[in-house]
């Protein structure tokens, strides 16, 4: 049973999937498109029940595929309805065609992702490759590390994406199972708070017979670049909207997040982990233990990967001597021959006068938990790079080396 703690707010014990569904309910979404795939399915199950119970007035559409899910959300958003959808793993990829058209038509569709490893061979575990493979399609994107943050991120993302200065779709990501299926306390707000924070969705040019418009007509090659530039600028210039939204969220809900990175025990740290998502919770424990032993280690958690906070990453990571990127994703044959995060960290650091050494750790692959022992092992690798003043090996597959 939910416990009332203050005012009309209540704390409930729910998992990440249900937290996402609750957020969609609080956002009073109009159209939901569902298709089952583990682990995100639980979000849609919860929403189906809310609609069945009459708690949420929305069109709940059981789509015939993820491709259709995204198209339904696109169509609904084009008419001025608030649309919510989601997926996991190969489902995210099945819908791949739609990501660019949706951001290109500037429709603030919201998609919940509970990560799942891509096939083969049908692994249910969390690996960020599914969502990350779409990272350059013009969607705002970031990872939550627990259910409360997932809930909050959904509201914040709608607020940013629907802002008339932005109008971009949002992928609100959480690790499959580590966040999506582990229950924890989530404070649900008073509907009045949400009303104050999230204004109704109003697209400036919806499909409305009273004001005819054409969406997405065919263009000549010379007409393309201006449209692409506009989309690029929307992504570039939304940073102030993102910061403002987080600030107002803190004022209204009392929970303050740095929009870009969370720093954990970085004071006096020489080496830091750089990661996204749920493994941060384990990392905090590992760092506490190591700090007690006098090891100067900390953590920097990326909260928003699109738009990528290049300057912020540069500024923060330049303070340290060694950065260990925990990838939790695959980018085969890429810069580090490991994951996708490494290249972006290095790119952000390139202009720094005091560049740290950067290591790439392939950990948490296949949805395996990254256990404390592995954090200690990775810290040893970072400390040895610190001692040597250089990197002996760029990419480590954790658990496959001594």
């Amino acid at each position, binding site marked *: 049973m939910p416990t009332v703690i203050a005012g009309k707010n209540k704390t409930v014990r729910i998992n990440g999937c249900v937290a996402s569904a609750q957020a969609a309910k609080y956002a009073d979404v*109009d*159209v939901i*498109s569902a298709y089952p795939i583990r682990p995100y399915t639980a979000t849609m199950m919860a929403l189906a029940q809310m609609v069945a119970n*009459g708690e949420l*007035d*929305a*069109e709940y*559409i*059981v*789509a*015939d*595929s993820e*491709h*259709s*899910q995204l*198209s*339904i*959300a*696109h*169509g*609904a*958003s*084009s*008419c*001025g*309805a608030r*649309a919510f959808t989601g997926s996991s793993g190969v489902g995210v990829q099945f819908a791949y*065609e*739609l990501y660019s*058209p949706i951001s290109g*038509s500037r429709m603030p569709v919201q998609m919940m992702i509970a990560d799942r490893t891509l096939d083969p061979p049908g692994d249910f575990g969390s690996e960020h490759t599914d969502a990350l493979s779409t990272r350059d399609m013009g969607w705002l994107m970031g990872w939550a590390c627990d259910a409360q943050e997932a809930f909050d991120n959904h509201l914040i993302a709608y607020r940013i994406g629907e802002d008339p200065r932005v109008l971009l779709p949002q992928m609100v990501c959480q690790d499959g199972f580590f966040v999506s299926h582990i229950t924890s306390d989530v404070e649900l707000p008073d509907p009045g708070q949400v009303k104050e924070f999230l204004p*109704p969705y109003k697209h400036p040019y919806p*499909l*409305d*017979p*009273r*004001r*005819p*418009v*054409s*969406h*997405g*007509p*065919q*263009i*000549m090659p010379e*007409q393309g670049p201006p449209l692409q530039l506009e989309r690029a600028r929307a992504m570039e210039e939304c940073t102030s909207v993102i910061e403002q939204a987080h600030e107002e969220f803190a004022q209204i809900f009392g929970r303050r997040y740095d929009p870009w990175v969370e720093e954990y025990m970085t004071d006096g740290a020489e080496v830091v982990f750089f990661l996204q998502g749920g493994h941060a919770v384990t990392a905090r424990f590992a760092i506490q233990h190591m700090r007690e032993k006098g090891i100067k280690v900390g953590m920097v958690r990326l909260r928003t990967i699109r738009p990528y906070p290049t300057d912020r990453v540069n500024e923060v990571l330049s303070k340290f001597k060694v950065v260990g990127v925990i990838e939790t994703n695959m980018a085969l044959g890429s810069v580090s021959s490991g994951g996708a995060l490494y290249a972006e960290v290095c790119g952000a650091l390139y202009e720094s006068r005091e560049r740290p050494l950067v290591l790439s750790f392939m950990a948490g692959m296949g949805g395996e938990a990254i256990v404390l022992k592995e954090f200690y092992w990775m810290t040893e690798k970072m400390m040895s790079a610190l001692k040597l003043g250089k990197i002996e090996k760029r990419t480590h597959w954790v658990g496959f080396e001594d």
Partner: protein
Amino acid sequence: MATFEVERQILPILGSPNQGARFYNPELPSSEPFVPGHRTCAGCGPSIQYRMTTKAAGDNTILVGPTGCMYVANSSYLCTPYNVPWAHTQIGSAGSFTAGVAAAYEAMIRKGKWKGPYPNIICEAGDGSASDIGLASISGALYRNHDCLIICYDNEQYANTGIQASSRTPYGGMTTFSPPGPEVPEGKKLFPKDLARMMAAGHPHCYVATASVGYPIDLMNKVRKGLNHRGAAYLMIYTPCQKGFVYETPRSIDLGRVVVECGLYPIWEWNPERRVYDYSFRPQNMRPVSEYLKLQGRFGHLHAEHIAALQKFANEQWKMMGVELPDALIWAADPQNQVNMAAAAEAEEVAETI
């Protein structure tokens, strides 16, 4: 909330439906939601259909245009021909994007976020979208019974990509993906997917019908019946393509009649209330298929046995509609009674023009 009924308009059915009033009917609305100035070919069947459809629907309409000719050739940026809201969607998203539009209006009207009568929501999918890549999405929209009309403008090929075979390309039809040659003299070896019947059989709660640009009033009335139907409706419309069929430009409407008269494009309605087919539509004449084939370059390579095979196919369609076959048509289904359309060299010349 299931009991909430949004306001819907009812469009009147036009008089003198089938045979009379071929090009003019005083009851036709004067509104033109599809205006001139687009880049489709002269005599383009799909755009003739587009004008008839939108005229029948009127101004309270939203159009969804999956990729196809009616997207690529029509919707040039800064000069689109649509006087009503129109949105492009991906070729595989015909039914799903349309479902999203319908769901949005259901929800917004119910929740008081949009005031006014429910709009006509029409999806204009080409046969490539409707019979191949978007088939599942359309089936999904029909199955879930969104209040919308999904039209397959059937020009029997992927035309804007340069004439490739679709599941609707007829047996013997020459396309760049089904060219005739010494090993494959007939070109397209497969008979077309029976798309509209598939939709009626699989989604019997929907209004489903076939139509042809050769019968404009019948076409417009079917558009209105589809829109008046509460729930999903599906129309498959014969729309000849001058570029792909290779015929004399002014003969688009003629072809739309001859194809029905020779039995290759049965015109029917599926009645969702009584759950029966209505085959009462009868063309003025019945003709052998060769009269239709000889008008088009895409059939110029056919041999006697191929023409007979098409006649056999047409005869089966007539039988299905409960029409008694005249002896002449039974006779025409025998290859011995047919002649080759042209020598191979001539067929190649025709191929060059595509």
